[in-house]
């Protein structure tokens, strides 16, 4: 077996890094999934704010959609249907407390905002919260996921 030259070894290592980057980029899937999810959150919050009595029967379809989406993305066929041909491995994600906290930080942040909105009794606070959460899901969440996945090997 011929040992690769240092140049060949460096080229091979570059190919390994490029493979990982390709998977990470593709793993975010279609932009429409993020936009659709953001719109669902916005319309749900707006509907609950404007028609509080309809809240129980509005919640169940949204919970069902979220469950179908989450379960779908964890299966090969479901993921393909949702336009995601690859699932990123989380084997190399660090298991430290700081990392776990970082991964859930946006959800915690939105939870704190929701709590503040409900405690302050802002008029139409639900609509403002829905707009904030929806915009986050549509535009910032994919970037955050990308940043998180790219950062995992550096820590």
């Amino acid at each position: 077996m011929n040992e690769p030259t240092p140049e060949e070894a460096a080229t091979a290592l570059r190919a390994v890094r490029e493979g990982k980057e390709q998977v990470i980029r593709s793993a975010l899937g279609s932009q429409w999934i993020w936009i659709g999810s953001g719109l669902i959150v916005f319309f749900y919050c707006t509907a609950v704010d404007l028609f509080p009595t309809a809240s129980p029967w509005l919640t169940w379809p949204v919970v069902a959609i979220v469950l179908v989406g989450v379960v779908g993305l964890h299966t090969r066929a479901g993921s393909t249907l949702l336009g995601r041909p690859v699932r990123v491995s989380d084997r190399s994600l660090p298991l430290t407390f700081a990392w776990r906290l970082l991964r859930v930080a946006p959800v915690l942040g939105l939870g704190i905002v929701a709590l503040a909105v409900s405690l302050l009794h802002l008029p139409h606070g639900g609509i403002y919260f829905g707009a904030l959460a929806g915009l986050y899901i549509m535009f910032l969440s994919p970037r955050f996921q990308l940043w998180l996945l790219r950062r995992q090997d550096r820590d």
Partner: protein
Amino acid sequence: MAELDHLLLDPTRLAIVSLLAAAEWAEFGFVRDSVKLSDSALSKQVTTLSKKDYVEVRKGYVGKRPRTWLNLTDAGRDNLAGHISALQTIAEKARSDGAQQPRDQTVP
């Protein structure tokens, strides 16, 4: 020291395995487009890799369309990790030799 894996010395096979290492699973079409191979060329490489227990192949349907998904086995992951480590050793050794050489030349 980790050893080089002769199966992964082939750049195409290394590209396929590297891609799958970052994924839990990936669709055949995604791997084909990423490594820029034809269906038959990828199929041939996947057969080689699955015979050696590096890659697992699963077939299924999405609607009426048949689909194939590929994933790296634990053995494949271990072999790739060893291969990468060996490549890093070669690259680092060359770097440290290169850094040492100019110093050696200046010493009378």
